[in-house]
């Protein structure tokens, strides 16, 4: 049977439908979240319009909080300092799962296949792994040997190809890997004597090299995940030889892996320098003197510039380094407490949290001009959803 609609009825339908699409459906590829560290809340943001869409509260102690995304870019997993793992639906802006999985945690990762979320703990130490859908516990791997009472703090937890997680043991000076490729009981591989006090770690964007930053010695440790039989080797050993180390008022973070051409840029510990390394030989090829102790050194997505923020008392400053000349080409002063930066996926803009000003600033990466800002309560980490498809983020 044919149903005939009058034209105005069709128009009404069309209007209703377009209204629904506008209100009800949207992609998440230009969304993200901003941690509000003091209040235990997050802002859900849209980086196409440069705005906050709303706040979600009740996430606990969010000092040093970080986040990863489900591969559909809909759910964020937020790792709080108090051991809370919170799963948030960024579309409905609701908490859909929360477990207190440890006493004191420091970050996490999502597996290559998206099915597992791992959390790295300071107390009681070790790593716990959860089902990403239900947040049910899948594996609990204490960072201690049989007979030991105290577990090591775990740091620098990343995902690696082959459904693995790799992390460092701060107290033991080791690197461990958990292989979940054969099911939900991981195969644990332990690399011993990999350097004193690894404070953070990173994996190169293709997922081949895992690097531990060391606090207890000048240098870093490198594990080639394609050739694990070769063990862990030290790189940049003694980069501060003969120099008195400067105080480190905030630990650098290696998550913002800065790679451009054949070069990688790493924050030095106790020096006001970025170390420049050749990515094939892992030899030092230069140093860039900068304004203070670097915290994050992050490569702009096009690889042309490296953006750096600093520890106290220089945390009001951002410097931009030109990869071709290895020189600082711009010094910005967004305000006190610039804690984190995040680039839009193709790098047209960079967002930065200015904690003490309760503000998130948005800069144009080609002109270095501030394009806009919005209010956030003591903002720290900024995490856009495109991280969902990047190894190690």
């Amino acid at each position, binding site marked *: 049977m044919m149903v005939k609609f009058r034209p105005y009825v069709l128009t009404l339908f069309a209007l209703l439908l377009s209204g629904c699409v506008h209100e009800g459906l949207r992609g998440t590829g230009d969304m993200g979240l901003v941690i509000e*560290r*003091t209040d235990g809340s997050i802002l859900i943001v849209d980086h196409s319009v440069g705005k906050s869409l709303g706040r979600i509260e009740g996430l606990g*102690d*969010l*000092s*040093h909080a970080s986040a990863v995304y489900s591969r559909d870019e809909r759910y964020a997993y937020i790792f709080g*300092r*108090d051991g809370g793992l919170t799963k948030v639906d960024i579309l409905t802006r609701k908490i859909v799962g929360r477990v207190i999985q440890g*006493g*004191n945690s*420091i970050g996490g990762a999502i597996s290559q296949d998206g099915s597992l979320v791992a959390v790295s703990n*300071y*107390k009681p130490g070790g790593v716990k792994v959860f089902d990403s859908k239900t947040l049910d516990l899948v594996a609990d791997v204490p960072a201690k040997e049989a007979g030991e009472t105290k577990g090591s*703090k775990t740091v620098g937890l990343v995902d690696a190809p082959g459904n693995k997680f790799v992390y460092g043991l*701060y107290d033991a000076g080791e690197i461990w890997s958990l292989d979940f490729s054969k099911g939900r009981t991981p195969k644990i591989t332990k690399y011993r004597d990999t350097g004193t*006090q690894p*404070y953070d770690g990173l994996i190169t964007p293709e997922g081949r090299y895992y690097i531990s930053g060391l*606090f*207890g010695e000048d240098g870093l440790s490198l594990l080639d995940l394609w050739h694990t039989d070769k063990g862990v080797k030290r790189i940049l050993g003694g980069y501060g030889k003969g120099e008195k180390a400067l*105080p*480190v*008022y*905030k*630990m650098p973070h290696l998550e913002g892996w800065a790679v451009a051409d054949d070069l990688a840029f790493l924050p030095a510990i106790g020096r006001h320098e970025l170390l420049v390394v050749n990515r094939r030989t892992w030899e030092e090829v230069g140093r860039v003197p900068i304004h203070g102790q670097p915290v994050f050194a992050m490569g702009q997505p096009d690889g042309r510039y490296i953006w750096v923020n600093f520890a*106290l*008392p220089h945390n009001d400053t951002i410097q931009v380094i030109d990869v071709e000349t290895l020189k600082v080409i711009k010094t910005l002063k967004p305000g006190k*407490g610039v804690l984190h930066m995040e680039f839009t996926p193709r790098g047209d803009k960079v967002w930065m949290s200015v*904690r*003490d000003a309760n503000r998130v600033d948005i800069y144009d990466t080609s002109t270095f001009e501030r394009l806009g800002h919005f209010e956030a309560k*003591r903002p720290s980490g900024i995490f856009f959803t495109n991280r969902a498809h990047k190894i190690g983020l």
Partner: protein
Amino acid sequence: MKIFCLSSRTWLCVAILSLALFAPVSAKAELSDERKSELAYFLEQDCGSCHGLTRQGGLGSPLTPETVAETDDETLFDVIMNGIPGTPMPSWKPLFSQDEVHYLIKLIRKGKDYDG
């Protein structure tokens, strides 16, 4: 004349007012209220980076009143001023005066809920 009738009360007010006015001045000779609130903020946010915003610990030890109860002021002062070699606890001497460190210790002992 009425004013003079109230004079004793007025003088009392003046006395109280002057006390109130002078109090911050004498406090300023030690630490200004502004500096005190900066220090409280610093303790929460920047010490909090390693010791946790709730001071339950992190990379650094817990800093709750209970956990520092057994440690005397002198030791805390030494740790803040000189750091703990071989650990990430740096020397804060370049950033704070002795009085400021004493004030930070006072805040640590009062605990997180004390708002400065």
